[in-house]
């Protein structure tokens, strides 16, 4: 028995340490994006006619400026993703997916442990990264691309006379908006599933979470990136 376990190699002893996993820019991006999405959703559905108590011209003005702000934010963030290599966080990991789904569907109710542990390299679980990937390559682009076309309607209006141009653009934009608000509901709910109801929100505010580190990782962090280690 012992031999066998020795033969498989002794797993390094992991220590829980508080580490900054969300950098300052990432947190800034997350929260400013969150505010903009709420503003866009509210003003957008006012423009759509769902919230008729908002003055139409006010809704249009707010929606347009917030959209422009979000586009600028996304340009910076795309740049950030590629220069920092953080884009790899969104690569799908299909093999881990069933376990995570099983956990949220049932395990979470019975107190089972989460099948996934945050590591330095991989901050998101399989379901999460798939959801964010969908958010970032489907919902987001569908919204901003149709939104830009919608916003610049004045420039192409005269070519679109007698066509379905505007209705189609509006359709895509509205459909993507419905997906977005649905995503937000699930996303906000999922933040309550941490150690405590507010644990994940606090993490996204402070940037620090306690995760298990190998001695090698600790050594690396202490040596090279001491700023990332919390107390």
């Amino acid at each position, binding site marked *: 028995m012992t031999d066998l376990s020795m033969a498989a190699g002794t797993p390094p002893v992991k220590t829980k340490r508080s580490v900054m996993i969300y950098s300052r820019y990432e947190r800034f991006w997350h929260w400013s994006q969150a505010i903009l999405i709420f503003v866009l959703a509210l003003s957008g559905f006012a423009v759509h*006619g769902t919230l*008729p108590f908002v003055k139409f011209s006010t809704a249009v003005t707010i929606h347009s*400026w917030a959209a422009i702000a979000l586009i600028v934010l996304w340009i910076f963030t795309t740049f950030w993703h590629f220069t920092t290599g953080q884009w790899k966080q969104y690569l799908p990991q299909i093999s881990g997916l069933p376990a995570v789904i099983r956990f949220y569907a049932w395990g979470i109710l019975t107190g089972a442990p989460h099948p996934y542990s945050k590591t330095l390299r991989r901050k998101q*679980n399989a379901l999460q990264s798939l959801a964010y990937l969908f958010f970032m390559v489907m919902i987001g682009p569908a919204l901003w691309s149709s939104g830009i076309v919608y916003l610049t309607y004045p420039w192409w209006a005269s070519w679109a006379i007698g066509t379905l141009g505007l209705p189609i653009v509006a359709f895509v934009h509205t459909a993507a908006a*419905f997906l977005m608000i649905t995503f937000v509901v*699930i996303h906000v709910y999922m933040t309550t599933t941490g150690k405590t109801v507010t644990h994940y929100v606090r993490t996204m505010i402070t940037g620090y979470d306690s995760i298990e580190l190998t001695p090698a990782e600790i050594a690396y962090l202490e040596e090279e990136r001491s700023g990332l280690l919390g107390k």
Partner: protein
Amino acid sequence: MRSSLGVAGALFAVALLFSGVSRAEDVAEQLSSAPAKPVAAQKSSGLKGGTADHSKFEALKGPFADGSEVTKACLSCHTEAGKHFMKSIHWTWDYTNPKTGQKLGKHNVINNFCTNARGNEGMCAQCHAGYGWKDDTFDFSNQNNIDCLVCHDTTATYYRLPNSRGHDACGVMFEGKKPIDLPKVAQHVGLPGRQNCGTCHYNGGGGDGVKHGDLDSSLNAPSKALDVHMSPDGGNFACTNCHVSDKHIVSGSRYDMIAKDEKGPGAPGSRRDIATCESCHSSKPHDKPSLIGFQLDTHAERIACQTCHIPEIARGGVATMVDWDWSTAGKFIDGKGYALEEYKQGDGKERHTYWTIKGDFKWNENFAPTYKWFDGRMMYTTIDTKIDDSEQPVPINAVMGGPNDPKARIWPFKEMHTRLPWDPKNKSLVYNHLWGKDDTAFWGNFDMVKSVAAGMKIENRPFSGEVGFLPTVSNWPITHMVAPKTDAVKCGECHTEKSRLAGLPGIYMPAHSTVRWLDLLGYAMFVTTIGGVVLHGLARVVMGKKKTHGEV
């Protein structure tokens, strides 16, 4: 808005004796707008600071036997004015639309108010800028027949009378007016003011504000809220400040409109043939840089300026007529004609709701226009039109253009609904001989078969001998009474479920136009998701085992 029936005193049947002076006064009241006062210093385009004092001209000292002698004096200096004016529609009453080829002009068309000028010139040609047109003997080539004063009087003391007498009852309506001091008027001529044009253009259809809905005597001295251009507190524009002219040809005809002016102002002073908003304001006039200004300029591609900037029709306290039923004309009480005044308009004046010589009327004021796509062309139902009455009401002037036509924009209109005399066998409109002191004129004899037969005989047109009443609608483009920009139609009055533009084809407007199934699906997805997370959360609480160790 008020309904014509809802006015207090609805039973105020003003039984006006049909053959007496009391009714005559009433007619006079119906036909002339509030007494005009001279409004000085109105802004007219082009000319400013006159160089001649007409009171110093020998030729204008008089005495003048009649208006025609004044004209002769005018022409002795203004040698070319007669030739110029004779080409204008104000003189010819005859116009062939170059786009549709239709023969129009007051001499030819049938409207759904007092129907036709043809055959009724003795009355209708009161508004012809000439002296004495009562039948086909009128000499259109005699310059001395031109009436200069009706347009150029600045004293507001000049007036015109019908060129022929009607039946006694009608004939006395203009008696008792103060004689005109012709030398005084002649010595005080000037550029036309609003009240000059208004003499006729306010009173189309038989009275103040009756016809247009955006032209009535309230424009003589309008508040800024009523008309930002014409108000003395605003631009104090004379009509001619926009309706510029070239050799007495005045721009801005309703027969051939420019629904979308893409040229804009042009070089300074260059455009003398156009009265569009864009000819001053350009086609991109909204505040910039501003997101909303940018969007509004785009709106102007498809929406006429008037659609947003004239929020309601007849806002000046003078009502406009919206419905006329000729089929009820000719009713008597104790053998006498009568009139009812059951509509009290904004300025307190009561308006006819029934009149023996005309039938039943409905009025309205402060009401939203009807919106239609319009490319500038109107197809008239003329005396020559073979009417297809399968779809009613039959348009008297069908508004042409649609959403797929880049030249068309959405325009505001006043709709006038009338049950109009027609020949149901020949399926044509008819000329009705209303005015005259003879035994066929409807106003006096009250036999419409006889009066229509007489009207149709003038040009030897076919008449079956049968008169029916056809539901018709005419469309009056609304373009005056432009409100200050703060009073323009708000975005949310169209961008809403109950839009002002509801029902118009080819529009996509956020907040109004939705894809129903997408909305249902979207809301369902959103609500179901909320329900799902609530249930999931409850389950976590109920199971009481919130010991999650995972990471999200």
